[in-house]
């Protein structure tokens, strides 16, 4: 499973992108559970965020959902920060 996160906007307006390929990873099932929960609450279209808030695009195996600060679910927040931290 390939998980991609694109973060745009924010005060600085600087974009960040990272992706994680879970195939072959020891913690793959943990990622899959997190992804399932994060995607369940994602939106099909980009929400209008708050001024200077980050906007997120989460793409998993080609399917994309959108979310924006500060209205992220805990699972979305965890998934996003993990991918941006651990991904390449």
């Amino acid at each position, binding site marked *: 499973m390939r998980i991609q996160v694109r973060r*745009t*906007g*924010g*005060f*600085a*307006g*600087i*974009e960040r992108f990272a992706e994680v390929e879970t195939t072959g990873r020891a913690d793959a099932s943990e990622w899959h559970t997190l992804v399932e929960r994060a995607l369940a609450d994602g*939106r099909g*279209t*980009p*929400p*209008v*965020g*708050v*001024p*200077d*808030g*980050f*906007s997120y695009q989460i793409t998993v195996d080609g399917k994309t959902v959108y979310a924006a*600060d*500060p*209205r*992220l679910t805990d699972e979305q*927040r965890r998934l996003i920060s993990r991918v941006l931290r651990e991904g390449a």
Partner: protein
Amino acid sequence: MVAGGDSAVTHCDDCSMPTTQPTSPAAGGGTEPVFCAIVPPHVLDKLARHGDPVLSGPARRTIQRDAIERTQRNLATVMGAAAVAPRAGAEPGKPHRTVYDARHGTDLPGRKVRAEGQEPGKDATVNRAYTGLGATFELFLTAYGRDSIDGTGMPLDATVHYDREYNNAFWNGEQMVFGDGDGEIFLDFTLPIDVIGHELTHGVTQYTANLTYYGQPGALNESVSDVFGSLIKQYTLGQTAAEADWLIGAGLLAPRVTGEALRSMKAPGTAYDDDVLGKDPQPATMDDYVRTGRDNGGVHINSGIPNHAFYLLATELGGHAWERAGQIWYDVLTSGALKEDALFTDFATATVRAARERYGDGDEREAVAKAWEQVGVRTL
């Protein structure tokens, strides 16, 4: 950057029934009734002005959130009646600040750590936020006669230490939120006073011109926050237009980053050029206008154009930029004549008109028209 397919879609999808649901962090946490589209607006409006806070609180928050979701709506109009209600502990012409600590979590507003009138504590971040809110309040009051964000003494709430290594600050429709930065690229977002002023000005814009946060009106919304953010810094330092650095976010970038700030109003596109961050993408003129769907249609990118126009006007007029140049911008923001979906040319035209109305057909009007001409924005 290329034109993207992303588009702003505005609809309230948080709920579809007037039932009890967990509220978003923006609504203040806890569980309370959420009134949504199924409740007619006039009922919501009436509820918002109800004497019982149990009824008025959730209704007002619903209106506020709805106003953010549907950026077409003018919060100032909807909230007008409620805004004049007396506020506990607030004196006219005095700030009513509260700083909260999210303690690295994301629940807003967090734990109250400093209320109005309390002495500084040990946390420098809390103290900076408190002082920055005070400076912003003071500029709007003394320079423009505006009593707080909404013009009627609205309390100024800020949350610091939001999340962990959080590289951002934002206005959530009700309050300011500041991250600590990751220490690698960004430092504490309360460090530059113009960042605090920038966030608070988003509140002022929400209650006045309510510029749609997308595309050109979004870039104007951003630019207005940069303009008054910079003016707050200049006012605090007592600087003239010639003395000011015209930078946004100076002191926010970690030492290893190659850059002096996040944006430059004096020379858009030159604030940073770094291996990790990339290069400052801001244009200074319409020739380099960036078409993109990202960043809400480039709101933090194309804001460079109106930012530079303001800089050109302020330096042409000379002296304190918050006086004549700032006054003209403030007049446009609060005139009620600007549409929420105003384009650069609409805003520019309004500034020329505002300059004439306030100062007659003199240097000011001429300097305003010249500044827009230099950045390639047409005035009608």
